């Protein structure tokens, strides 16, 4: 289906884009368009104004700073998947980007766009949650920082206000003994399609024990979320297979899992537990290889 007609605006500066957005609360931001354009064509939305950030220079950088790695809003999935700083400091996010969509989607879709779209089955939100990322939103009234844990509110609903643009994703650099990993099972048995279940695990090892952990789940609930009980169960253990299995069993029981043609509730929960275990194993291995 053709989208309804809309005005296409391509501002050349970010302040101009924010001004345009503030003038129309129904306007939508376009970066990669890998989610927005299908929604327009299915007529799930019909904004009168589309504001393309693609002509604004300086938004496509990945910058390693003192405490974090900052991704601009035009950083493509393919960049996130291959960037050396991400590979070093945000493995779970990089691995999630590598498993997002197919090569056409990865070359064009953006990591920040995936965050803003807040699909409950998207991969990279789980990576951002597990890595403890911060999202930066801008409007004509200024900028504010939102912790990833506070960003995903519901299916396709983020903490962004209608007049806000996501201008950066900041992932803290890993310290000593810290690493992360992402595992998923995609639709059609593949790895790259939307996750039926996926898990990102970040942890810190100290003297052979898990000293801290974050576990993020996607594809299972109505939004990507942190499984705090699972993470707490990991802390203090030695990360052995038995400890990981035990932790993976906890914390998902009170989650209302989605159910559709791709998987029942119990199947999704089962896959999520497998993904937690595999991601935790690889994260632990990652801390050892530093």
């Amino acid at each position: 289906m053709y989208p309804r007609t809309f005005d296409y605006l391509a501002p050349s500066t970010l302040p101009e884009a924010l001004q345009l957005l503030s003038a129309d609360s129904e306007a939508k931001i376009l970066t990669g368009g890998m989610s927005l354009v299908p929604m327009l064509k299915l007529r799930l939305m019909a904004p009168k104004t589309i504001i393309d950030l693609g002509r604004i220079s300086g938004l496509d950088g990945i910058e390693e700073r003192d405490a974090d790695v900052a991704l601009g809003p035009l950083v493509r999935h393919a960049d996130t998947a291959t960037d050396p700083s991400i590979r070093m400091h945000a493995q779970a996010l990089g691995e999630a980007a590598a498993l997002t969509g197919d090569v056409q989607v990865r070359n064009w879709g953006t990591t920040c766009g995936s965050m803003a779209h807040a699909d409950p089955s998207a991969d990279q939100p789980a990576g951002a949650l597990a890595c403890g990322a911060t999202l930066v939103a801008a409007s004509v009234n200024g900028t504010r920082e939102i912790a990833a844990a506070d960003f995903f509110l519901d299916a396709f609903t983020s903490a962004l206000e209608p007049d806000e643009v996501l201008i950066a994703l900041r992932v803290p650099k890993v310290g000593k003994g810290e690493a992360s990993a992402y595992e998923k099972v995609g639709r059609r048995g593949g790895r790259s399609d939307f996750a039926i279940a996926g898990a990102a695990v970040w942890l810190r090892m100290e003297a052979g024990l898990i000293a801290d952990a974050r576990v993020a789940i996607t594809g299972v609930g109505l939004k990507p979320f942190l499984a705090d009980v699972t993470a707490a169960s990991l802390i203090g253990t030695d990360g052995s297979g038995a400890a990981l299995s035990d932790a993976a069993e906890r914390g998902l029981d009170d989650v209302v899992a989605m159910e559709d043609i791709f998987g029942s509730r119990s199947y999704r929960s089962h896959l999520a537990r497998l993904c937690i275990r595999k991601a935790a194993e690889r994260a632990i291995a990652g801390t050892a290889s530093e």
Partner: protein
Amino acid sequence: MFAVQAHEAHVTTIEGVGTENALHPVQEGFREEFGLQCGYCTPGMVVSAIGLLAQNPEPSGSEIRHAIEGNLCRCTGYQSIVAAIQYAAAEMRMPLQAESEPPAGQGRP
């Protein structure tokens, strides 16, 4: 993507890849290895393969499958497409001097 987003960009389609008399090695691979039947998906497969080989001249079978999975083929079962891309990869890695000779022994046994 909207056409207006490609304003001032350089776009290469299948028409810009090779000619009837001088096929691109990937196109040649698809012919030699029977990488197509109806041909509907072939342009997408060929440009995806060219993109892959530009970044990774020696892809494994699973890397090839990962690279082309955005394209659906209802005819071939994919195996011959993977073989076609492996054929092209081998041909493109060959030293220039070998271009005067036909690529022997790389087709089907």
